């Protein structure tokens, strides 16, 4: 039961992540490598706020706001850069976020203060379980329900967004930016919005993660994590609603299966990496219409 709840929480978190990343990859047609960074930003913001005594809603709202504002770091370059170059920019943002998180540390200051915001490589421990309106998610079941509810909310928002004229506009901009501008569409502003929603949701997923695991360190902002998130989107199929959910489930199931097969952790890590690579190559082969293709099998 606990194991099922654990899986459910993880699935919820990564469904949000994949769903939000899909807004950038599938609907804007830009491959981003810095999603783990926003995930980590959300978790750190949540951790600091909740350790300062704020409830789940306030703390995660803070996380979302920070993620939303910092999304400008990628959305402004997206005005100008596409393809290769955007990928490099997002990689730079990723490295910058990871660097800042690892280095915002000062030995004598308390974690969460301005001098030692992230506590650097030591991370922030003992993050309290989420509580709201006097209620506290102490059991695994209540945690799973919270995660599921949050994921449900995010999926509803995403669904409404991508099915709305706004989602159609995003896809049109992806298809032909110049033609969209020629129709008087606020192309740049719309991209900004898409990135803000995407990064905000990633931060929300990070808040959920921090509240569940109770400890965070800079590894959550690692490039590997970004690649994992990207793989979820690509595996599931970009540019549609159900794809990311499928992708998140597939890639979360994979290490669990390896664990059930009793493969040692070190070997499993490498195996996983290779499997991701293979999966990606296979997928690209089978979907020659490219990354942002709408029609998929």
């Amino acid at each position, binding site marked *: 039961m606990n194991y099922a709840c654990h899986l459910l929480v993880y699935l919820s978190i990564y469904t949000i992540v994949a769903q939000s990343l899909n807004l950038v990859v599938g609907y804007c047609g830009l491959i981003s490598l810095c999603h783990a960074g926003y995930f980590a930003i959300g978790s750190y913001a949540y951790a600091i706020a909740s350790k300062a005594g704020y409830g789940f809603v306030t703390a995660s709202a803070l996380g979302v706001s920070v993620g939303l504002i910092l999304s400008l770091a990628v959305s402004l370059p997206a005005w100008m850069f596409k393809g290769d170059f955007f990928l490099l920019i997002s990689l730079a943002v990723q490295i910058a976020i990871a660097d800042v998180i690892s280095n915002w540390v000062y030995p004598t200051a308390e974690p969460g203060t301005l001098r030692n915001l992230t506590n650097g490589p030591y991370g922030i421990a003992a993050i309290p379980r989420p509580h709201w309106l006097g209620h506290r998610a102490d059991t695994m079941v209540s945690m799973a329900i919270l995660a599921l509810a949050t994921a449900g909310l995010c999926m509803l*928002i995403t669904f*409404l*967004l991508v099915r*709305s*004229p*706004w*989602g*159609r*506009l995003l*896809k*049109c901009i992806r*298809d*032909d930016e*110049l*033609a*969209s*501008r*020629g*129709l*008087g*569409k*606020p*192309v740049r502003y*719309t991209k900004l*919005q898409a990135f803000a*929603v995407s990064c905000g949701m990633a931060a929300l997923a990070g808040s959920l993660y921090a509240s569940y695991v109770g400890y965070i360190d800079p590894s959550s902002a690692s490039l590997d994590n970004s690649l994992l998130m990207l793989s979820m989107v690509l595996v599931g199929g970009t*540019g549609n609603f159900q794809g990311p959910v499928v992708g998140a489930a597939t890639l979360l199931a994979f290490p669990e299966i390896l664990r059930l097969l009793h493969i040692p952790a070190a070997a499993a890590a490498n195996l996983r990496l290779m499997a991701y690579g293979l999966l990606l190559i296979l997928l690209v082969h089978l979907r020659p219409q490219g990354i942002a*293709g*709408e*029609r998929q099998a």
Partner: protein
Amino acid sequence: MQLEQEILRSDIDRTTGARNRLAVRLRSLRKTFGGQEVLKDVNADIARGEVVLLRGQNGAGKTTLLNILTGNLAPDAGTVEFSTNGAALAFSFPPPIWSRITPWGRFSPETLSRHGIGRTWQDTRLFKTQSLSDNIAVASPRLIGEIPHVAVANPLRVRREEKQLQTVVARVLDKLGLGEVASSPADSVSLAKTKLVAIARALQAGAEVLCLDEPLAGLDSTDVGSVLGVLRQLAETSVFTLVIVEHDFNIPRILDLVTTVWTLDKGRLKIEKPADIKAWFHAPCVEELPRWARLVIGDVDVITVPLGSGAVLHRVRSKRRANITDAPVLEVEDLVVHRGYRSVACNGRDEALRGMSFELQRGDLGIIEAPNGWGKTALLETIAGVTTAKEGSLKLLGLPLNGQSPWNRRRSGITLLQARDSSFSSLTVRDSLHLAGVAYVQDDLRALASRSVSSLSGGEKQRLAFTCACDGQSYDLALLDEPFTGLDDKSISGICKRLSAHLGNAAALVAVPSLA
């Protein structure tokens, strides 16, 4: 809906007389690409409801100008002003500092599109993953569903709006005959259909000034019809201002829609009326004039002179001779031509052009294109002396011709090929040639030598007549009245070749019916 609204608006405009208001005003536009001045000092106005045809050679800057008109490209210098959407919008280049810093009101496709300047692209640029109806729907301005927080917070309102919109779009597509493929993705329908949707999309975005980049390019002749139909409709509502870039070979198809022709040549814009260029594009025989003229001259340079009452004189000369200024072979000044007692050929209806004046140099091929009854034949006969000129002067090689008899004129170097029956039917071919003093006879005629002229076919007669007129004595000026009438292609090129050889030290004046 958009279209219907516009048509309504058009009626209002017409009654209030607002139709002739200026829509676009271009002043001293300059644009340089990589050191090459593509546009130098382009000035033009477009009145509301006008249909402008923008033409020019490949690389003359047509697309550059279109891109400037639609905000896709900023000129290096000059001003661009629009009066559309009931408001004015002006840009001057290079832009002043303050406008470079503020993000509002920039010279960009977005700004111009919101102000009612729309465009289509040559390769249509539809959103290929979207259905045709979504391609049009997305163009609608001010959709509340495109505000993300409204889309999330008030989905029902968005859905209602979308439903209305789709009804409108369905009607537009039905009108275009695309009702059945409304939900097909844009990359799965034929080119002609995408071109129609591209136009509908621009209109849906609220375009009043619509710039069309080669709307007919790449279409089969059957498809051209449907696009042309829509263009015609737009032109006729006369509320839309159209700027159409088109390739030369498609121009005849749209010329009757057009109110103004802009010709870009070497960076400058020439503004003409369609009638002026009509002669170049007489619809049924687009290629005919340049074609046979080129057979005669090779690489040609043309100066076109209007002769009044719908007639024009093309002075065609070899490019190699373009810079040579020679003493004129023929000088015509203020000539008034009569047939019987009626003066024809610009007979006073056009006061400014009471008589006609032109000159031809050695190597020039003059082509008179005129409607039937204008007096082409009479003009040639006047020059040849068969008819006498009542007014004006005629000079051959500087010597006045007035008063000289046809025979004298023949001797001083004018030969005339009449339109029909210039040979004596009772003679044999051999005798006819002999009479005309033709020494060398080409093979094809030699085979006919012993037959009587009356037994020849029409084409054979014409060839014989040409030979008699031009291969006999030497001449300085050949007057040819419809020399190609009834001839097949082979004969035409044969005649052209021979005419070409003669043009080395003579001029020729050819009259053909205008076919525009």
